[in-house]
């Protein structure tokens, strides 16, 4: 799965996610990616979110929308909401998870429970940042 979140010069946020799904998945299986609020979500007032990992857990946890809701209704910061969403229902919803999010100031947060997430970030007039484990 791959994804991107962005803030443009007009202050608009957007999120995009695209995936080849799980190796050996059943024919016809659809994961979290196209489920709005599950693997992909964006709202100019709060944040944009793109998820990756075990789709069934992300869908059942509605994780992309949870990041938004924890910021909007529970006053969490982007990083805190993203990290909490990674841990949400961990007893019931097993599996790898990665969440990428961006807030209205162009700050990004990465949450993941796998120790490895392919990711990158670049803000206006700054150097690009690419990371795997670090």
């Amino acid at each position, binding site marked *: 799965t*791959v994804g*991107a979140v*962005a803030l*443009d010069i007009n202050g608009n946020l957007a999120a995009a996610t695209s995936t080849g799904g799980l190796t050996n998945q059943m*024919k016809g299986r659809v994961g979290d990616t196209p489920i709005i609020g599950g693997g992909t979500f964006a709202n100019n007032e709060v944040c944009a979110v793109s998820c990756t990992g075990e789709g069934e857990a992300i869908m059942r946890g509605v994780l992309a929308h949870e990041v938004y809701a924890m910021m909007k209704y529970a006053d969490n910061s982007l990083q805190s909401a993203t990290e909490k969403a990674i841990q949400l229902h961990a007893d019931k919803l097993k599996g790898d998870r990665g969440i990428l999010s961006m807030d209205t100031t162009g*700050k990004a947060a990465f949450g993941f429970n796998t120790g490895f997430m392919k990711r990158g970030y670049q803000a206006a007039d700054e150097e690009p940042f690419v990371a795997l484990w670090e």
Partner: protein
Amino acid sequence: MKKYAIAIHAGAETLKPGELDKKKEEAYRQGLADALKEGYDVLGKGGSALDAVEAAVNSMERNPMFNAGRGASLTQRGETEFDAAIMDGNTLRVGAVGGVRYVQHPISLAKVILQKCKHCLLVGTGAEEFALANNLPLKGPEYFVTPEKREAWLDKQQEKAGKKAMPGSMTD
């Protein structure tokens, strides 16, 4: 307030340093840098966040290193099936596709659905017909399946067959 910014991911998996060969690690880093640049350049020219995230994801869909578009994981049947979604934080409009097989850039089809379709999510042949109606490029299965993914899939099948054929495994 940042003037503009973009962030990308290409999947999270359980992998420890040292479990990845140097060449593959380099290819991952290069693929991420390429995608970041595609999206950042759109923003730098005053482009929309929507166009920027599409450009970044397009780059990763073209890159066989990543599990999207070309180089995607294979299903039980040894085929590729794609899902994608894009959402505009300003209008809350959405475009999403599920279970498409021949669309070269699933995220671009999702964006056309966001822009032109009264529905949010189209799946299967309906989504593919919408791609045809909007002149989006479709590709045969051989475009999407890379040798290493084919190899990994075959190994998996043999492993499964091995389990079945193992002596004693037939006992009820």
